[in-house]
């Protein structure tokens, strides 16, 4: 059960989600992917992506500077 990290700061919608999707082949079931992003649609988009692809969104928080941090279980 590995934990992998993805830095999508500075990327604009839909690039953070594209990075998550293109990383999938490197991940195994049960792994956790931690993503940081700062595009405003990211919290809604990662929730929608997890719903559609059957992944589990463990958490998604936003700090005072607008940086979003999400944990996804693959």
């Amino acid at each position, binding site marked *: 059960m590995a934990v992998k990290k993805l830095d999508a700061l500075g990327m604009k919608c839909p690039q953070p989600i*594209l990075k998550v*999707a*293109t990383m999938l082949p490197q991940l195994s079931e049960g792994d956790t992917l931690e993503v940081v992003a700062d595009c405003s649609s990211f919290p809604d988009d990662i929730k*929608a*992506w997890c719903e559609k*692809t059957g992944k589990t969104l463990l958490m998604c928080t936003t700090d005072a500077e607008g940086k979003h941090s999400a944990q996804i279980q693959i």
Partner: protein
Amino acid sequence: MAKVAITVNGSEAKNVYPPFILGSSAAASGDDVIIFFTPGGSPAMKKGAIKELNDKAEALPDLEDMFNSLLALGGRLMVCELAFDVHDFTEDDLAEGTEVVGATTFINESKDATLTFSF
């Protein structure tokens, strides 16, 4: 998962960004995606055209990244064969990863599309 078919009728940024934003997002979610470039849209699939558009639009997401991601996620980029009758370029001038097809092939491949767009 859905099948998404998008036609592109022009080669300006307003024609090219939306199909790549929507198409790459759909492919990232597991949808089958076909983007079909009519002769009017076909210049956008010439080698270097995506980079040229990308360099002019700093406020928008990275078009080259969306192009490469779309292909990596299984999306298909089809160029109408009539493009070569209308423009002075050939199949050899098209970006890697594109397919040249006739209208009947696109119609057949997209016949069960559940989402369609045209730009």
